[in-house]
């Protein structure tokens, strides 16, 4: 009992408990035994993956004391770009992927530059980027979904093949038990973990989020480290956009709306402090799984969307309250 209590005194312990509670709820409210089917597990992880990629980048930014509201729009922009390049222009994958990532990195660079160098509050800087990137996505797509139906000159449509890149991403491996998207998400987790927990830059981000002035006076390159965090966030968002396009087999300029908020919720439920300086990728992974499973369990049990949203909202607040209580 004592060790149980001490486990709960750490953010990781509480985040883990939240996940266990959600999983237990899934095991109990288990309509038609669906929860124990491997397909359900695979779909849960696949559906959480796109959000999870955003949460990885979001963690880097939040640890440094910032916030990135632009990631949802970058998903749309990257998805539109990917669809345009892969479907309409027939670019090979080794051109599409770097180009997409470049678009995301560029958006992040601008957000980071505006907030770190021009000292605009991160909320405002990334809010502007959120609007701007959405605008770019609509401009690039002409306001319509970029799909395999190509308009002819006479107004009719001709259909083209789904590109191999999209097939490759929207695909399951290990006998269909694991989605490639989930694999990509796990690679994102690993990269973000390496950066945050094992690289000098990650330590700088913690120091900046914990006490920016002390960090600066200790020789931490504050501006550069912050800009890199937003670039990384933009990159992860671009990866998410690519996966989104592959799964939908089109580039939807309306995609990703509100995704930034889900990503923030995942980071916060994990126990990463919105004030910066505390948290980690492991915690975010727990947060991603918690929200992912919660959503799936509610949908298995045919809870209508209205009730699902209300319940999710309540559970986020409850989780955040427990996280805060543990902190002195």
């Amino acid at each position: 009992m004592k060790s149980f209590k001490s486990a709960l005194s750490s953010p990781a312990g509480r985040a883990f408990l939240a996940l266990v509670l959600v999983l237990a709820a899934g095991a109990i409210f288990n309509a038609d035994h669906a929860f124990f089917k491997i397909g359900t597990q695979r779909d849960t992880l696949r559906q959480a993956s796109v959000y999870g990629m955003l949460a990885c980048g979001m963690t880097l930014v939040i640890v440094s004391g910032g916030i990135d509201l632009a990631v949802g729009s970058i998903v749309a922009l990257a998805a539109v770009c990917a669809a345009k390049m892969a479907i309409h222009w027939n670019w090979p994958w080794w051109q599409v992927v770097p180009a997409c990532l470049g678009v995301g990195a560029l958006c992040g660079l601008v957000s980071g530059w505006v907030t770190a160098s021009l000292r605009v509050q991160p909320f405002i800087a990334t809010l502007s980027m959120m609007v701007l990137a959405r605008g770019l996505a609509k401009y690039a797509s002409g306001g319509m979904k970029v799909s395999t139906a190509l308009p002819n000159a006479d107004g009719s449509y001709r259909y083209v093949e789904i590109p191999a890149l999209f097939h490759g991403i929207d695909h399951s491996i290990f006998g269909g038990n694991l989605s490639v998207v989930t694999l990509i998400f796990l690679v994102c987790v690993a990269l973000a973990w390496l950066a945050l927990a094992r690289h000098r830059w990650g330590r700088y981000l913690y120091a900046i989020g914990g006490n920016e002035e002390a960090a600066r006076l200790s020789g931490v390159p504050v501006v550069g480290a912050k800009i890199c965090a937003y670039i990384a966030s933009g990159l992860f968002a671009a990866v998410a956009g690519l996966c989104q396009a592959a799964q939908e087999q089109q580039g939807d300029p309306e995609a990703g709306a509100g995704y930034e908020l889900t990503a923030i919720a995942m980071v916060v439920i994990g126990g990463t402090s919105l004030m910066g300086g505390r948290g980690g990728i492991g915690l975010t992974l727990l947060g991603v799984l918690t929200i992912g499973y919660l959503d799936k369990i509610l949908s298995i049990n045919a809870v209508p969307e209205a009730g699902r949203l209300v319940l999710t909202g309540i559970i986020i607040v409850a989780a955040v309250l427990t996280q805060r209580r543990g902190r002195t």
Partner: protein
Amino acid sequence: MSIPSSLVRLTGITKRFGGVTVLRDVQFEGLAGEVHVLAGENGAGKSTLIKILAGIYSDFEGTIELDERPVRPRSPTEANTLGVAVIHQELSLIGPMSVADNIFLGRTPTRGGFVQETKQREAARHELRQLGLELDVTQAVERFPIATRQMIEIAKALSQNAKVIVMDEPTSALNAPEVNTLFTLVQSLKQRGCCIIYITHKMEEIERIADRITVLRDGQWVGTAPAADLPPAKLIQWMVGRDLGEQFPRHAQHFGAERMRLENFAVYPTGFSSRAAVSDVSLSVQAGEVLGLAGLQGSGISELLWGIFGAYGAATQGRLFLENTQCRFTAPRQAIDAGVALLTNDRKATGLVLSLSIIANATLAGLRAISPGGWRSPSRERQATETLTASMRLRAASLDSEVGSLSGGNQQKVALAKWLQIQPRLFMLDEPTRGIDVAAKREIYQWVEQWTAQGIAILLISSEMPELLTLSDRIIVFHRGAITAEFARKEATPELILAAAMGQKASA
């Protein structure tokens, strides 16, 4: 002439912070119609006494009487209604709100919940007119110069029927004509029967406006006397006249070559467009030497260290030489790479990242050196931290503990370890023993001894006179951004240093 009545009387005031007693059995009496200067060195307890009177600290021993009635203000608002107003160094006005709104903040005249603008404006004008001020009261306060804002704050205090007005270094941001205006105002407040409690570090001002002076030293009452009976020499003696306690002899004094030299150095903390914190500073420090910098609040010595360190970016003028090579640091990173370290005077705000571990803090400045290719090596970090803290007797559950959970003394050891890790050539220590216990203090004194023996040059700021005298090989005194005196270790006395720090030219 009738005997002036006692407006405010504090008796037997004792205040502790944790185990530290900062005020012990202090008394103070302010009469109607007098300017009563409260004098003492930094840390003598002046601010604490004022905060008790202003209701900011309500857990203290002793009694406060206002108009012969015992009171115990529990909040600043309560102190205000009792007739005590404090004009702070940082003004408490709300910049974007209008003058009238500020004067009547919290007690706006309303009817049915709606502000009676016209009435409030007229009342505000009336209050200001009494101070001889004609202002557009609908303008935002932030559009007026500091001197005017101070007047507005005084008008606000008077409109609340303040009888006891505390002014804490009110002239620190004023120019000479503004000071004159303020002093005229102080005279008129005296005539209205107010008691003005005036805190200042400037001898000239004490001589100009003080009626009586109360001196505090180390949290204790030294004495109260009419200003005429307390000429500068005697006042200074009252302020420092303590036994220096146990001396900590510095033995090894092996000075090497010149380590750092400043030539006509000036620092502009808020950019070149505003006033320099220090200007025209020329000094040098040798390897193995401790150069003490002395100065009271507003002397600019902390800013000088920040300027040397590149913490104000490019906002410095003049020349800086490290071992005869001219340098120009526009970011702390550059200074650190050149072997310059700065222990700031506020470890919580500017020294440490409290949410991070001891290891993370101790390796923050030198992380690049022990992270090959950018990849951190947790084992090397732990080893480096252990090497540094082993001799420091750092008390912590583990090196992974958050620094915020440590005591002040142990936090300071972590901050020192961070700088030792870069193996500094010049170590600037700004109040290295502030807020730490006696044992840790002695340890730090010993380390200073060791560091100089290793040839590190040290610039030391300490507001504790015994500490400064004990550790320094040489002391340079600053007053309002300029050097006023320099003493060798043997010549330096508390009286001479304080006189120079208060702007008196050395007569010897």
